[in-house]
């Protein structure tokens, strides 16, 4: 008994000491709404990461610029062949190519043309890492990519080792920038933002309480729903069911039947455009008439084509407003259609912006990877950068946390509007019955 008391006292003391030496929280990381900050209601964390940007303390700034280059190489990593999202990869490539071509028309880098070193990221067995090694061997100054979360993660570990600056324009996995790698930036807003907006829309604005989820059984689906689920749970609405489906699956009735049995009052789909559309079709076929929400990848022609009239009123998020009345965006769209005979999608637009940032950084910093990195990450040069997708607001992890957009299908077309600020609903918040 005495022993127990000693231990307890010790514990108390140590907790108070650690509390005292714990950091103060200056701002919420990643636009996290105050009430969603982890454990915040109960206890200040011992350490808050991602507040201050990382510095790169390694050597390399002193390396002289090469003088004998025939081309200035920039890497590209994306799903181009053998992937279910190769159409997205193709758009991303085209956006990059357009930026490179425009830059070369303007004289490239001091008269030396930029050259895109294109690498396909879908191969067997962690091939992205090997592609990064190839880029290093090729001597790229920075690279852009990719979309798939696994690929991107594998690649940025290699980029850290190899010390090549990277801009990601297509992978909204929040953990991407939570790796503390001072070599990677992301210009596309992440799923954290999408989750907050969707949760706000579904539970707060549309006042649903019983929401079922069907998601892709890949990292895109898993991580997206992870944040969605955490957020909804925090405000008192744990998901009533979470079903998964495999890539290339076409029959979702078994999952949907199980969902049907739970009588949800709304359904959230998190997956690629094709599967999302098929799921929507089968939801309706099964006589389920609940409102359906989806993830950002449905903002595509493919989704609208497959889903047809069923797509009407589907709500999702979009990382930017493709219909914005912005001359820059309009010019980009026009040039893109002219060059590739196809409307740009979100991946093309973000890649175009991302590649332009890389080009500008190389032009300003010169041919030195560390100096390019320094410029990209200084939170000054590109903070507020106006691209065709909108402005850039990097947080401490160089994640673009600018506000995102809601998208809703109206008359067979997506209509976009800014996602409203997260609305704190005290009534809901107080009702929490979960362990948080």
């Amino acid at each position, binding site marked *: 008994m005495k022993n127990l008391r000693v231990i307890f006292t010790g514990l108390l003391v140590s907790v108070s000491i650690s509390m005292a030496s714990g950091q103060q929280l200056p701002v919420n990381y990643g636009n996290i709404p105050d009430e969603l900050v982890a454990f915040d209601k109960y206890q200040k964390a*011992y350490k808050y990461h991602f507040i201050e940007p990382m510095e790169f*303390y390694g*050597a390399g700034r002193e390396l002289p610029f090469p003088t004998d280059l025939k081309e200035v190489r920039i890497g590209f990593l994306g799903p181009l062949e053998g992937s279910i999202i190769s159409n997205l990869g193709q758009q991303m490539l085209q956006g990059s190519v357009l930026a490179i071509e425009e830059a070369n028309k303007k004289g490239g880098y001091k008269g030396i043309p930029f050259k895109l070193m294109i690498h396909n990221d879908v191969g067997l*067995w962690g091939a992205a890492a090997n592609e990064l090694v190839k880029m290093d061997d090729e001597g790229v100054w920075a690279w852009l990519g990719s979309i798939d979360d696994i690929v991107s993660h594998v690649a940025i*570990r290699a980029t850290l080792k190899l010390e090549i600056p990277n801009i990601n324009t297509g992978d909204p996995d929040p953990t991407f920038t939570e790796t503390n790698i001072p070599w990677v930036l992301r210009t596309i807003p992440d799923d954290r933002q999408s989750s907050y907006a969707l949760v706000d829309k579904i539970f707060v604005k549309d006042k649903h309480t019983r929401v079922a989820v069907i998601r892709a059984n890949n990292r895109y689906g898993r991580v997206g729903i992870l944040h969605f689920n955490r957020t909804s749970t925090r405000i008192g609405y744990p998901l009533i069911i979470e079903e998964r489906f495999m890539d290339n699956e076409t029959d979702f009735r078994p999952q949907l039947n199980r969902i049907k049995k739970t009588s949800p009052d709304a359904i959230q789909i998190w997956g690629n455009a094709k599967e999302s559309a098929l799921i929507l079709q089968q939801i309706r076929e099964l006589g389920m008439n609940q409102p359906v929400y989806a993830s950002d990848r449905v903002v595509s022609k493919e989704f609208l084509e497959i889903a047809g009239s069923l797509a009407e009123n589907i709500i999702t998020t979009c990382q930017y407003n493709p219909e914005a009345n912005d001359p820059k965006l309009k010019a980009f769209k026009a040039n893109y259609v002219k060059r590739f005979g196809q409307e740009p999608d979100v991946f093309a637009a973000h890649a175009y912006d991302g590649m332009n940032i890389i080009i500008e950084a190389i032009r300003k910093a010169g041919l030195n990877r560390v100096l390019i990195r320094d410029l990209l990450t200084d939170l000054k040069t590109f903070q507020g950068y106006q691209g065709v997708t909108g402005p850039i607001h990097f947080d401490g992890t160089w994640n673009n946390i600018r506000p995102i957009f809601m998208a809703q299908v109206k008359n067979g077309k997506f209509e976009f509007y800014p996602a409203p600020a997260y609305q704190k609903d005290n009534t809901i918040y107080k009702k929490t019955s979960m362990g948080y």
Partner: protein
Amino acid sequence: MKRIFSNKLFRYSLLVLIIAGAGVLGLSKSRKPNSGAMKPKKAEMADFSTIESREKEARPGNISEGIPIYGNWKTFTEKDGLPSDKCYAVRIDKERNRVLVGTHHGLAVYQDGKWTTYTKEDGLAHNGIVSIDISVLTGDVWIGTLGGLNRWSGGKFETFTQFNSGMPNDLVYNVFCYGKDVWCATGGGAGHYDTQTRQWEIFTEMNAPMHEPWTYALSAGDGKVWIAAWGGGVIEYNTVTKQFRDYVDPDGFMEIDLQPDDGVVHDITTATSYSDGILWISSYFGMSRYDGKNWKGYFDHDSGIASNFINFLRAERNVVFVCCDEGLSCTDGTTWVTYHKFDNSTDGKAIVKEGNTLIKEVPLSPSISHNFIIGVDAEDDVLWVATSKGVCRGELLN
């Protein structure tokens, strides 16, 4: 009796029992060839006391009971014959009286005061040498490169790649020899190569408790292997029972560490090292120490550690050498010696702290070659450090 049997519940439970029984039997059966090698006698090879004693015997070291302080630093860069200033790894090959340095442009070997470089032309899988380990049994050098794994033995390089062998991926972040086994952390999962049966085993999210196959480093000891899995904390693999256990940050959030001593400080781990019964784990968010029972976290604001961004660490006896982006630290968990080079000078200092309390500062002239530390190895009275700008060698002062 008849009624009992006609009872549905009974029948179902009986069925469940039978299935469960069969399952257990099947499991134990299928595990058999795994646990004991094919020949029962050969299982005796897995004598960990022997492996441990051999490992220790091979690296007796002179690291004194207290915290060693190293000085008289000598730096080697491209000017001295290194193929590249960017050094990823350093390993002392005591048996052959030489030092192996992995650089971005080849393997550099320091022997008799001279540097010799080995590259792809000599048989290396890739010029980017990321990790080096030496088998204490065979003396073979295992080299993890950006494009495959090499065994360097008797002057010849043998290459293992994801194409010609069962290796998970060609980007080898870390290689570790343990007895007859070679372990590597690659871009496609952890690989285990049994040099005797020639069998490769791969550990990824498919068969081990990690979400993705992002392994970054590993180490072994006492029959266990600890895999630093990027985003997955530390995966412990028991080589005898073939069971896994994972250690992740209990708070479950990337953006915070709720409690420093509740487990590994962050899920994004960069290295593990085991010595004297202590497992040391590094991350980009601080360092953890695990003695099998208790965890302890170390951050730059509460200890003498140079910084929270740790590339690598290596434990030798009771101390661990921590490769941070702002200097090299050495600690036994309470006392700290951190080496820091001054900007724009070759000089620097060693900062000695007890916990976070400064004890003294020892001026070093010259100092370590650079503060961005990537690799380290200690042997007897010397410490070799691989940095972003050359490799340096310090001599034991105390």
